[in-house]
C-alpha cells in the first residue's frame, strides 16, 4: 500500500523529453504551460491515489458493523481529508491541468499570458495540498471536521487537532492558486486568440474553461474569506461563528456553499467541455447545436452562483422555494447538453476507442447523477436524503460518474498529444470496464442505504436488515475501482516505454492543438491553419483532401 503523501514519480520521470533523462531543474524552473499542465496532472493524480486509498480504508471499515480497522477519530480524519483532497486537491487541479495544457494550444497561442504567475499557481497548489495532508504527520492527527468544516464543530473547543489548522492554511494556499490560475485563463482566452478565432469559433472546452474561470474568480474569494475568519476564530480569538458571543454558525454555511456549489460546476463544466470535444471527433460530425451548448454553459455557470443554499435546506435559515426553483432550473441547460451530445452521435459514424467508451459511459452514469440531483433539489425530499448515503451516492454519481468519467475520456483522448504515444487500447478498455462495473457496484447500493436512512459520516452503523449486505457490496465495488486504476497506471507505464509514434492528429480531430506536434514544440506552433469555423483542423483536412482530389482530376 502506498503511503498517503506518495506522488508517483515514475510518471514524472517518463514525461521528460526522450533521451534527455530527468531534467529535474528544467521542471522545477519551468514556465512552459505544457510542463506546468503535466505537473498539475501528475500532482492531482497523486492526491487522487492518496484520497482513493483513504476511501478504500473507509469502505473496508464500513463493510460490516463495528469498528475493525480505525478508531472513530481516525475515521473522521479519513473522510475529512478524502473529501477535501478529492474536491480541492484532485478535481480542481485536474481542471487546471487540462486548462493549462490545452487553452494556449486550443486558441493558437505560444503560452499563457502570465507564464510565471502560472508556475506560482502550481507551486502554491502543491504546497497547499501537502500542508493539508501533513495533518497525518502531526501528533494530534488530521482535520476532523468534514470537508465542509461547519463551525462551531470546527472551532476550538470542539476540534482540537493541529490538522484542522493545517487544513485551513493549506486550503488558503490552494484557493489563492486557483484564483491566480483562473485570472490567467481568462486573460489568455481574451487576449491570445489566434487571428480569426472569434468567441464563437472557440473550442467548447475553451468556452467551458472561460465560464469556469469566471466562477472561480467569484466563488473562491468567498471560501478564502471564510477560511480566514475560521483561522482568526481558532487562533486569534475572533467570534464570527460563536452564537454565545453574537456570531452565527450559519454564516459559514452561506460563505462555504457560495463557494461550494459553484465549485461543483467548476469541476463539472470543463469536463462537459471535454465531452463536447470527444463526441464530435468519434462521431465524425460537428457538435450538434454548438451555440446552444455554449449558451447552456453560460446559463449553468450563472445559475450555479444562485443555488448555494440547497445544501442548507435543513437549517431552517433559508428560503426553501427560491433555492428549490433555481436548483431545478439548472437541470434545463444540463438537459440541453445531454441532447447536444446524443444528437451529435445520431447520424454520425461512430467508433469506440477508449475515449469514446468513457464518453458514452459518462452519458449513462451522469444521467443518474443529474436525475437524483433533481430529487434532492426538492426541499421536502431533501429532508429525508440530506446527510444520508443517498446524498453520498448522488454526489459521487455526479462527481465520479460525471466529472471523473469525462476526465478519463480527456486523459485517454489527449494522451497522444501529451506524450506522443497512444495508450494500449486493450488495457485502456479494461480500465474502462473495471472502473464502470466498480462504480455501479459501489454507489448504487448507497442510494438504497441512504433512502433507508443510513447517515453519512458514521464510523459505525447498526446491523439493521439489509444494511450489512449492501455495505459489503459497496466495499467490493470500491476495490474493483482500485483495481481499474492499477490497470490505468500499467497502461501509462507501458505506453511511455514505447517510442513516440502518435503523430500530430491521431484521432482526425478538430481543434488547433491537433495541428501542433505531439507533444507540441517549445512554443507550440510552427504555423497555423486559417480559422474560419470552430473546427479549423477539420477544415484544413477537408481542404487538403479536396485539393488532392482536385489535383488528381486536373492532371488526368
Amino acid at each position, binding site marked *: 500500500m502506498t503511503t498517503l503523501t506518495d506522488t508517483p514519480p515514475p510518471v514524472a520521470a517518463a514525461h521528460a523529453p526522450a533521451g534527455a533523462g530527468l531534467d529535474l531543474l528544467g521542471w522545477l524552473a519551468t514556465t512552459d504551460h505544457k510542463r506546468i499542465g503535466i505537473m498539475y496532472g501528475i500532482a492531482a493524480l497523486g492526491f487522487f491515489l492518496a484520497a482513493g486509498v483513504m476511501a478504500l480504508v473507509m469502505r473496508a471499515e464500513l463493510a460490516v458493523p463495528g469498528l475493525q480497522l480505525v478508531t472513530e477519530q481516525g475515521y473522521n480524519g479519513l473522510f475529512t481529508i478524502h473529501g477535501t483532497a478529492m474536491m480541492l486537491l484532485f478535481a480542481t487541479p485536474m481542471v487546471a491541468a487540462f486548462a493549462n495544457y490545452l487553452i494556449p494550444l486550443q486558441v493558437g497561442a505560444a503560452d499563457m499570458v502570465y507564464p510565471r504567475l502560472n508556475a506560482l499557481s502550481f507551486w502554491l497548489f502543491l504546497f497547499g495540498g501537502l500542508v493539508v495532508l501533513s495533518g497525518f504527520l502531526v501528533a494530534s492527527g488530521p482535520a476532523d471536521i468534514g470537508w465542509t468544516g461547519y463551525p462551531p464543530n470546527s472551532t476550538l473547543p470542539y476540534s482540537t487537532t493541529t490538522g484542522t489548522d493545517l487544513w485551513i492554511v493549506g486550503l488558503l494556499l490552494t484557493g489563492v492558486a486557483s484564483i491566480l490560475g483562473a485570472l490567467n485563463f481568462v486573460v489568455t482566452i481574451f487576449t*491570445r486568440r489566434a487571428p480569426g478565432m472569434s*468567441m*464563437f469559433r472557440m473550442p467548447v472546452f475553451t468556452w467551458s474553461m472561460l465560464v469556469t474561470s469566471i466562477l472561480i474568480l467569484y466563488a473562491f474569494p468567498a471560501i478564502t474569506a471564510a477560511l480566514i475568519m475560521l483561522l482568526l476564530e481558532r487562533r486569534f480569538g475572533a467570534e464570527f461563528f460563536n452564537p454565545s458571543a453574537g456570531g452565527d454558525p450559519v454564516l459559514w454555511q452561506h460563505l462555504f456553499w457560495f463557494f461550494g456549489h459553484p465549485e461543483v460546476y467548476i469541476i463539472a463544466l470543463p469536463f462537459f467541455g471535454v465531452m463536447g470535444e470527444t463526441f464530435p471527433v468519434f462521431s465524425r460530425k460537428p457538435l450538434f447545436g454548438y451555440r446552444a451548448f455554449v449558451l447552456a454553459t453560460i446559463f449553468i455557470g450563472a445559475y450555479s*452562483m444562485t443555488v448555494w443554499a440547497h445544501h442548507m435546506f435543513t437549517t431552517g435559515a433559508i428560503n426553501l422555494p*427560491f433555492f428549490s426553483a433555481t436548483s431545478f432550473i439548472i437541470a434545463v441547460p444540463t438537459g440541453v447538453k445531454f441532447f447536444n451530445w446524443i444528437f451529435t452521435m445520431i447520424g454520425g459514424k461512430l467508433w469506440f476507442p477508449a475515449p469514446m467508451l468513457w464518453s458514452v459511459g459518462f452519458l449513462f452514469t451522469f444521467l443518474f447523477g443529474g436525475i437524483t440531483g433533481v430529487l434532492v433539489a426538492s426541499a421536502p425530499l431533501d429532508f429525508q436524503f440530506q446527510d444520508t448515503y443517498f446524498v453520498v451516492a448522488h454526489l459521487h454519481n455526479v462527481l465520479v460518474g460525471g466529472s471523473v468519467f469525462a476526465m478519463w475520456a480527456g486523459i485517454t483522448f489527449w494522451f497522444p498529444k501529451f506524450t506522443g504515444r497512444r495508450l494500449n487500447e486493450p488495457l485502456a478498455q479494461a480500465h474502462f470496464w473495471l472502473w464502470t462495473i466498480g462504480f455501479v457496484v459501489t454507489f448504487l447500493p448507497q442510494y438504497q442505504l441512504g433512502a433507508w436512512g443510513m447517515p453519512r459520516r458514521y464510523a459505525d452503523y447498526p446491523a439493521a436488515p439489509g444494511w450489512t449486505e449492501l455495505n459489503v457490496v459497496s466495499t467490493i465495488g470500491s476495490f474493483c475501482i482500485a483495481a481499474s486504476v492499477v490497470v490505468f497506471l500499467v497502461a501509462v507505464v507501458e505506453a511511455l516505454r514505447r517510442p513516440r509514434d502518435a503523430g500530430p492528429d491521431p484521432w482526425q480531430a478538430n481543434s488547433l492543438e491537433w495541428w501542433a506536434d505531439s507533444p507540441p514544440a517549445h512554443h507550440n506552433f510552427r504555423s497555423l491553419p486559417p480559422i474560419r469555423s470552430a473546427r479549423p483542423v477539420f477544415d484544413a483536412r477537408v481542404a487538403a483532401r479536396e485539393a488532392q482530389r482536385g489535383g488528381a482530376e486536373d492532371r488526368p
Partner: protein
Amino acid sequence: MIRRLLLLDHPQETRFFLFVGAFGLALATVYWFLTYEVAGTVLLLGFGAGAGLLGVGLYRSRPGAVRAGADAARRDADASEAGRDGGDASAVDQVTAGGEDVPGGGAGGVDTPFSTPLGRLPGETLAPLALGLGMALGLTAVVFGPWLLVAGLVPLAWGAWTWLTAARDELRAAVRQEAPETAPDLAPDLVADTGER
C-alpha cells in the same frame, strides 16, 4: 436599433460580462426581496457587481477595430442577409499565418478585439517556486510559530526580487524594441517609469 440595444455592435467578450453582471444583480434583487437575508444578498451583489464592472470596463474600452468591423458588418448585413453577431464578422479576410508572428496572434481583427502583442515569454526561472515555498512556509507559521515565518521570508524575498527584476528587464527590452513604431504614446511613460527604479 435592436442591434444597439442588444449591444450587438460590441464584442462578445463585453456582452458576456455584461450579461453575467446583469444576471447577478437581478438575482440579488429578487433574493433580497424574497428573503431579506443579508449574507446571500451581499454575495450575489458582489458577484453581479464584479462581473458587471468588468463588462463596463470592456464596454468603455471598445477597440476601434471593433467599431470599424461592426460598421462594415452592419453594412454587409443591410445589403445582403441578416448578420448574426458584430463580433463574429466573418467578412474580415483571413490569412494563413506563418513564421515568427504567429504565436499569440496580435493582428487585432474584430474576431479577437482584445488581442495584445505577445511581448516576451520568460525563460526558466526558480522565482515562482521560491515565492510559493515562501508563502506556504510563512502562512504555516500561524500553526507552528513565528520561526517558520522567518524561514519563509528568505525564499519569498529572493523569489520576489528575482521575479520583479526579470520582469523589469523584459519590459525595458520590449519597450526599447517597440517604442519607435507601435506605442508612441505609451512608450515614454513606460521608459520613465521603469527608469526610476
